[in-house]
Structure formats: C-alpha cells, structure tokens
C-alpha cells in the first residue's frame, strides 16, 4: 500500500519531466530523423532514400564546414579551459569573503544581457571604426584603421567569451572542495609547481574540467549568432548551413539530415572525451 502510494507520487513528480523530454526533445528529433530520409522526387511526391546523406559526402563544402566547425569548437573549448582555470583557482582558493562573491558576480553579470547584445558589444570594439582600432591609432601603433572583425580569431574571441561562465562555475565548485593539505603535502614531498598541478590539482578537478568542457563544447558547436555576425564572409559554421537549408532554401530534407549529423558528431565527441579522460557521465554530471 505504502509503496504504491510512493510510486504514484514518484510518477506524478516525474510527469513534467517526462512530458518535456518526450514532447520537446524526443518527438521533434524523431520527426527530424524521418524527414532526413525523405527524398523529394518532384514537387508533390516523396520517397524514402539516403540522398541527403549522400549529398553530405559528395558535396565537399558540407563536410569541410562540418570538420571546420568541430575543430574550431574543440579549440575554443580548450582555450576557454586555459583562461577559466586561473580565474576559477583565484575565486575558489585565494579570494576570501566578500571579494569572492563580487568576483563570482563579475563573471555572471555579462550573462544578464542576451547573446545578441554581447556579440554586438564585441563588434563595436573590434570593427574598423571601432574602439580598439581608434585606440591603436591614438597610441601611434597603427597608421590607419585596423579591421579586427570578420575573421576566425574574432569568432573564437566571441565564442570563448560566451563559454567562459559555463567553464568557471563547475571549476570553482570542484576546486572549492579540495583540501589545502593535499597541495601542501605535495610541496612537502618535494614537488614543484608543475608536478603539484599535474599530479594533485588537475586530477582532483577532473570532473569539473570535463563537465565544463562538455557544456562549453555543446554551446560552441550549436552557436549560431556569434559565428554569423563576427565571422562575416568566412563565417561558414555548420549551424548556419542547417539554418540556410531550412529557411533560405526551403530544403527541409537536407536541413534535417545535416541536423542529425550534427547531433551524431557532438555525441561522438563527448563520448570520446569521456573515454579519454576516464570519466563517466554519471560522475561528471552528478
């Protein structure tokens, strides 16, 4: 009796979550999978087939953009980790009391504005008639206006900035829990800075590093606004191609196939990352 009541309440508690997963995640993805295998024969007849997937492999620009997006996302994630680690270390270990809260808040505040606003902020700074360019000229370091926008570096700057918070938070959480004695013991036993970092700090922070990397990688891979606005003519990003297929070309079938491929790519890379770092999803996300 008692167990059936608790089972019922468990199901009731789970209902919103299940509805969310089934209606908003599972069903759309299944529908997309179905559409991706439909081939438009003429304007009103459809047949089953793999044509869209063949297109992906025969048209070089699809898979070139695909590889480019994957590589640049990995690089962005790595860069974000390198930048976020010292920040997280400072917030978790060195800052005390109020300054800790303020520093944390400083990381959070930019995220009160939307991604679009943040991207435009960077565009104002980097563009030819922008702030950085005019500073360089005022300091005499540049003769004419310098264009810093519309290239891969600009895209990566924007993406790193967007991912930073999602790397800092899990790192701070794991580093916070580390015992000071462990680090001291490392030094007492004759370890240098590098050894202590490699043998003690990084292994301890590994769950935080991996979960931060997964989140940042997913955000970067699925990012649309930043590559399009800051990359300009060299923006080729896979999400942009999916958008183009759906909206500009009315080619839902191709767009769906590309969407499925992106899902597979991100799942495979995350799985590989977990394997290589020896972590399990349960440990990292729990």
């Amino acid at each position, binding site marked *: 009796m008692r167990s059936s009541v608790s089972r019922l309440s468990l199901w009731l508690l789970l209902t919103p979550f299940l509805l969310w997963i089934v209606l908003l995640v599972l069903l759309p993805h299944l529908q997309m999978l179905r559409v991706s295998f439909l081939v438009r024969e003429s304007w009103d007849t459809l047949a089953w087939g793999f044509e869209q997937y063949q297109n992906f492999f025969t048209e*070089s*620009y699809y898979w070139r953009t695909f590889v480019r997006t994957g590589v640049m996302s990995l690089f962005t994630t790595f860069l974000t980790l390198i930048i976020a680690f010292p920040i997280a270390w400072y917030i978790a270990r060195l800052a005390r009391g109020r300054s800790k809260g303020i520093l944390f808040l400083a990381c959070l505040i930019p995220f009160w504005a939307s991604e679009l606003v943040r991207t435009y902020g960077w565009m104002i700074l980097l563009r030819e008639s922008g702030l950085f360019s005019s500073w360089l000229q005022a300091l005499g370091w540049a003769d004419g206006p310098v264009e810093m926008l519309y290239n891969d570096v600009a895209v990566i700057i924007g993406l790193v900035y967007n991912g930073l918070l999602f790397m800092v938070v899990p790192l701070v959480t794991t580093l916070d829990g580390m015992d000071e004695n462990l680090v001291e013991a490392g030094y007492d036993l004759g370890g240098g800075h590098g050894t202590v970092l490699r043998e003690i700090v990084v292994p301890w922070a590994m769950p935080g590093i991996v979960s931060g990397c997964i989140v940042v990688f997913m955000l970067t891979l699925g990012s649309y606004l930043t590559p399009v606005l800051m990359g300009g*003519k060299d923006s080729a990003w896979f999400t942009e191609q999916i958008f183009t297929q*759906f909206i*500009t070309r*009315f080619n839902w079938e191709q767009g769906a196939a590309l969407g499925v491929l992106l899902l597979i790519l991100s799942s495979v890379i995350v799985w590989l990352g977990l394997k290589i770092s020896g972590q399990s999803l349960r440990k990292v996300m729990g």
Partner: protein
Amino acid sequence: MIMPSRSTRNRAFLLSAALATASFSGTTLAEELRLITWGGYAPDDVVAQFEEETGIDVQVTLSNNEDMISKLRATGGAGFDLAQPSQDRVVGVQRQFNIYKPIDFSRVNTDQLQPSMVKATQESTELDGKFYGVPSVWGTSGLIVHSSVADIVSDYTDLCDSGVEGQVSYRLKRPTLIGFAFAMGMDPFAAYDNRDEYETIMTKVEDKLIDCKSNVKTYWTGGDQLLALLRTGEVKAAMAWDAGGWSLNAENPDIRFVAPESGALGWIDTFAIPRRSENEEAAYKWINFVMQPEIAARITNASGNFTASKGADEFVKADLRDAYRESFDDAAINNIKWYPPVPPGLETMEGQVLDRVQAAN
C-alpha cells in the same frame, strides 16, 4: 450573512447576461488582420489610420521573401491573412507548396493602380488561369557607391576591382548571382527555361564570386547592417537596394545609389492571400486602403520605395523624388531588368552555388 434580495439577484442575472452578450459581440467586433510584410511597408501612422477607419486590429510581422515562404509553408498557408512576397517568388512556390489562394480582382479597386503594373503582375503570378498577386511596392537593386570610388565602380563586377579591396560588400543571395551574370555579359533570365544553360552561367558566376571573395569585407545579411557599414565608411561600394542608397544620400551627399551599366534589377512586391487566411475581407480592405494615392505616398516616404498606386508621386517627399531622378535617367529606367517568375528547381541549383562560395577560401 445577509441573503441577497430577489430583486438584486435578478439584477445581477441581467447584468451578467448583458455582460455575456457584450463580450460575445465584443469578440466578433474585434476583427484582426495578420499581415506579414517587409519593413517600412506598414508604417505605424498608416496602421493607426486603418484601425481607426475600419475597427480592424492589424498585427504586423516583419519578414523577407524566404522567411515568408518558410513560415507559410510550415503551416500550409495558415497563420497570416495577407502576405507580400515578390512577384517572381509566387508561382513556383504556389506550385510546390500550395500556400496561396487566387486573388478575386473584383474585390480589388484596380482604378487606383497603374494598369501596366497590374498586367505585369497578373502575368507573372498566373497559375492555371488564376492570378495570385496584386502589385504593391516596386524598386530595384543596384550599387550604392561613395564618391571617392565612383570612377572605379560602375557595374557589379567592378566590386572585384583591386582598387576597392576590402571595402565592398554584397549579399550571398540570388540577386547577386543574377546581377553578376548580367554584368559578365550573360542573360540569366533568358536561360531560365534551359537548365543546362543556366547551370553553365551559374558556374561562371560561382568562379567569379570565389575569385572576388578576398575583395569583400563581409557579406551583408540585413539592411541595417549594410547601412551601418556604409555610414561609417568601412564599406565604400555595395550591391544593395535603391531605397537604402537614397536614405544614405539624405544623410551624406557623397553616398549615392547608382544604376549599374548592365542594368538595375527590378522587383515588384505583391499582395498575396495565404490559402488559409481567416479574414480575407480585411485583407482586401487593407489592399484598397493602402493603395490610395495619399496613403501609398506615405509608404513611399517611410520605406523609400515607390508603389503601384496611380497618382501617388505628387504626394511623395521632394528630396526623395530628386534622389530617384538622379539615379535613374530614362535610359537607366528602360534598362531595368525585371525579374521573371523563377521556375521550380532553379533555386536549389543557386543554393548550392551560394553554399560553395560561402565555404570557399
């Protein structure tokens, strides 16, 4: 506790009944027109006057050709009561996705429209003997050029000249393909019905655009973005719409809209009624309302583009008329290349060309 007296209860009942009828008739009275259109085609003051005169609530959604078609395709022609696609994008789309219903010209006040444009739009939006479009606003794409590079850039292909390296911009969309094809001495419109010939033309244009890529600062994606690039002087020459050029010209006389030597590309935006429009009556009312000369002139003043309304010109702002005349002499007007309807299938081919250009480096 005091029981309400019988009379109060009766009164309460009457009141609620009255309220119910009032709210009932209220819902039928509050008519709605859901309009999907381009920026500037439904200025606030025009919408307000229409609402005041007819009591119909207008909900405006701003869009562009591709977005309009995508939205209507997703719902099978529902969600909007009136749309404004360009005339070359009506028939092919209608044949493929069946999202519009034919126009009942007996309900359109054609007396206030320019007959030649009505005829042209009817011809280009005809499918199985039925017409799907009423002309509304027309304009051209050409070049917006700063006077400092005016002697270099006089045609689309001049955007690839090394003298303007890193200072030009255009869109990665079909008008660019068409414009470049004309500037390279080919006639893409004549090849519309011949797939192979069209493909040859597009291959040449693709090579040209890939070659030209290093010259381009960025491919613009929205009107405001382009205007900002030109206003700051970061871009000195761009392929763009006439109205954008004229509005920049009003701010800075050095920037002008130029009709290219190979001809400006002319488009006509239409009124088309989505297949599952819920308020056709209001849609026709809107068409007849905004095509009155004074109202149409206000749309011209807001968007910078001229309309199909007869006699609207005399109500248009003088400086806009001057800018128009400066850009188009008679020869330039006769040289405008009007977009014929796009046959289905061509856009897929063009799409692949554009994708390859975007991915090239």
